[in-house]
């Protein structure tokens, strides 16, 4: 922005500005005290040998980062996190898209189904994670029992190193509610004329989906992918309640690695380094969302 010579502003504009800052003051204080302050504090602390007390901290430069990158468990947890992120994006988002397409059909009772599909999302928490331990029970659980009925010997799910991550991804597919609704809103925003002209051109349902729906949906789809990546970093509850990072380290994800280092091993300097890395990754993702979002805004007139 070009800085203009500041013109004297009227008394009423000044008053309005004062009210503006008064109204956003709580948020601004919160931003400084609870977010920005901690973020920069965290950066500083990640360069110290901080363990428990904040008194006589030694500056150790990048040692925490070096230690972190030398720790094979850190890399395991990065790998596990990526595994889950990719799984949730590929399966979660496609599943949410399928649900959104279904909910976009003009059939009676659709509001009921929308509510039912959303339900597991709102109840996601400790209580439902406990239920899933039971569902995943290899011998007595409903999942393997159902599979047996159709002649499939079910895997040991969260009790096995190979299956624990797919299990967590499967479970997360039950709480795709928000992205399903966002995609549904996106679908409903596709101009009807486009479908009509595609029909005139003789396009079938699949052709319409791939040539009209998906391209028109791409900004929303991108937003939804970002959300599902971000929420993949937030699966602490499931990990803590269901697996505690196990079996072995096979479900040790970054948030669990952070938690263990900070509050179990009391390696707070290292935890601060992990947290800082996570913060940077998440900010880059958010930034990407806005960058891509801006490139795609052509498709919708500015509605505020």
């Amino acid at each position, binding site marked *: 922005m070009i800085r203009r010579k500041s013109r004297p502003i009227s008394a009423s*504009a000044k008053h*309005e500005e004062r*009210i503006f800052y008064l*109204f*956003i003051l*709580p*948020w601004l*204080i*919160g*931003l400084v005290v*609870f*977010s920005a302050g*901690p973020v920069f*504090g*965290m950066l500083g*602390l990640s360069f110290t040998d901080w363990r428990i007390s*904040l008194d006589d901290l030694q500056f150790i430069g990048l040692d925490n980062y070096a230690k972190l990158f030398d720790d094979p468990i850190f890399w395991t947890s990065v790998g596990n996190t990526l595994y889950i992120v990719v799984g949730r994006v590929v399966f979660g988002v496609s599943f949410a898209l399928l*649900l959104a397409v*279904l909910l976009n*059909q003009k059939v009676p009772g659709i509001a009921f189904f929308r*509510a039912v*599909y*959303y339900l597991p999302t*709102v*109840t996601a*928490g*400790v*209580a439902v994670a406990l*239920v899933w*331990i*039971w*569902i995943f029970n290899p*011998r*007595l659980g*409903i999942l393997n*029992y159902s599979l047996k009925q159709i002649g499939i010997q079910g895997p040991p799910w969260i009790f096995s190193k190979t299956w624990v991550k797919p299990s967590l991804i499967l479970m997360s597919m*039950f709480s795709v509610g928000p992205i399903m*609704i*966002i995609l*549904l*809103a*996106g679908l409903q925003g596709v101009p009807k004329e486009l479908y009509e002209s595609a029909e005139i051109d003789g396009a079938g349902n699949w052709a319409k989906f791939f040539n009209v729906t998906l391209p028109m949906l791409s900004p*929303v789809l991108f*937003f*939804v992918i*970002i959300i599902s990546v*971000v929420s993949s970093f*937030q699966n*602490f509850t499931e990990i*803590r*309640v269901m697996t505690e990072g196990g079996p072995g380290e096979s479900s040790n994800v970054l*948030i669990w690695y952070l938690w263990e280092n*900070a509050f179990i091993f009391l390696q707070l300097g290292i*935890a601060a380094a992990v947290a800082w890395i996570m913060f940077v990754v*998440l*900010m880059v993702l*958010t*930034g990407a969302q*806005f960058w891509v979002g801006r490139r795609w805004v052509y498709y919708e007139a500015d509605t*505020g």
Partner: protein
Amino acid sequence: MTTQKRNEGVAWRKSIHGRRAIGYILTFALLVPLGIAFVLPFIVMVSTALKPLNQVFAFPPRLIPETVQWENFADGWYGYGYVNFTTCTWNSLKITINNIIGNVVSCTLAAYAFARLKARGKNVLFAIVLATMLLPNEALVVPQYVLFNRFGWLDTHLPLMVPPWFGWPFFIFLLRQFFLTIPEELVDAAKIDGAGHVRILLQIFIPLSKPALATLAIFAFIGNWNNFFGPLLYLRTPDVQTLPVCLVQYQGAYGNTEWHLMMAVATIAVIPVLLIFIFGQRYFVEGIATSGVKG
């Protein structure tokens, strides 16, 4: 219009009709089984909560219990020494209600400012709201923990109950989007009558924004009621615990054996969220849709 064109139109409509019937069947063939899958975890939870212990481990598993044991709810609730569900529920309720009020107040003020007031630096500040909107709290817990430790707030409800009074970027964004749709003329008319911003906010914006405020309150209710990470981190003594933490302690205490009692307390813990969702479903869904399309 020529007759030929009209005839084509009729043929077209007919084939659409046939296709629609097939479409209906196909749609329901997918909608119904998926719906069953989505409620299955609840059915498992409730049916386990109603079974006597020996039927919990029976094979094959039954979704409808042979005998219904209602005592499980009371036994689970009072059944274990140091996990006091009454205290936990009370704490959860207190924190949740406080946080809803805090969020509504602080976010309404900020949203009004961003939607309706002119000020230098506004665009930069709003960019910060957007940038922090997606940032999960998980990335900030370590330094926040240090901060609250410094304040002497550990093992109290303050780390959970104070920050909500200082806004939440997602809610500010949501409300701002709604406030932008309120017609300018209403505001101008009020200004001519000599109303200040506080009165405009209280007498025009808040009454007109009930759906948006309801959305916000529902989001806040669910988020806080289910919050597990924060309480686990900041609370130590049993007296201050919240419901999710109590459930986990229960799990640990029994070494995963008393499934029927655990599912009974889990069912009780889920009921408030279910009720809120069922009654507020419409607002909730609209709120999320707004966030995505304009995000």
